[in-house]
């Protein structure tokens, strides 16, 4: 899956979980400032993304997610080094 595909799926998740308009979810959109997401929103969003991509995003990385593009990079990084739980399930996105 290339970066554009990851971005598209992440945008879907953002639209669904955060209830924002699709056109607002650009690569540079900031979750907090542009998409009006609070910490609970961000956790919900990350859980949805983890499920969709079958990856595990470590708790300490959550702070680093500022923009939609950063979230995509985090998913790509997580796919390259799957967490034990993701690896055990025997699948990858």
């Amino acid at each position: 899956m290339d970066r554009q595909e990851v971005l598209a799926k992440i945008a879907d998740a953002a639209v669904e979980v955060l209830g924002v308009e699709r056109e607002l979810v650009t690569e540079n959109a900031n979750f907090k400032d542009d998409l009006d997401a609070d910490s609970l929103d961000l956790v919900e969003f990350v859980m949805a993304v983890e499920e969709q991509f079958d990856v595990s995003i470590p708790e300490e990385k959550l702070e680093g997610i500022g923009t939609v593009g950063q979230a995509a990079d985090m998913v790509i990084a997580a796919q390259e080094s799957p967490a034990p739980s993701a690896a055990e399930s025997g699948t990858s996105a």
Partner: protein
Amino acid sequence: MVTGASRGIGRACATALAADGHRVGVCFGHDDRGAAETCAAVEAAGGEALAVKADVADPAAVDAAFGQVEEAFGKVEVLVANAGINRDGLIMRMDDDAWGSVLRTNLDGAFHAIRRAAPGMLRARFGRIVTVGSVTALSGSAGQANYAAAKAGLIGLTRAMARELASRNVTANLVAPGPITTAMTDALTDERRQAMTGQVPLGRFGTAEEVAAVVAFLCSDAAGYVTGAVVPVDGGLGMGH
């Protein structure tokens, strides 16, 4: 979802919630027959029940139990974290297992259930969490270091949840029963029971139904502005704490 629902306060909560129109997941640890009786009581109250077996100390079992209830009834919007055990003893003689097992069931168990329930409640923008504490959490109780510590822990857990989830219309409250007539207090000696009764201003043990009535209120729409509360149902025993 009511944990510890095969008897006592849990059964009464399941029945009271059914009477208020809820479909009830009857979560129980080992007493299959008791759980079946609870389901029968729920159905007699005009409700639907699904018995799910899970040791709340085991997060995977809790996850599976929620999965079963969600499949049957949809997302869990009301959680009564009631499952509890006691292993009383003076602290010099309290071994690690007596300490740990009570903490795991009474405190970790509530944590596991709340953690599993929270995402669905957030999404629904509605949720009711009620934990079942004890008057001993604040007053202390000789011979119950493990039990009192676990129940006191529930207060912090519940109030943290009240703050964390409030913006999504999820409330979290704790009921703190005093001496209630259940299998747990049936194990007391007559002498001990009389001594406890003497300390209760209302002069008697309470019933599981009297606790369940308060739990049902906290789960109702009428209690929408109540969160983070510690509500005693103790005949006045805890006054001043």
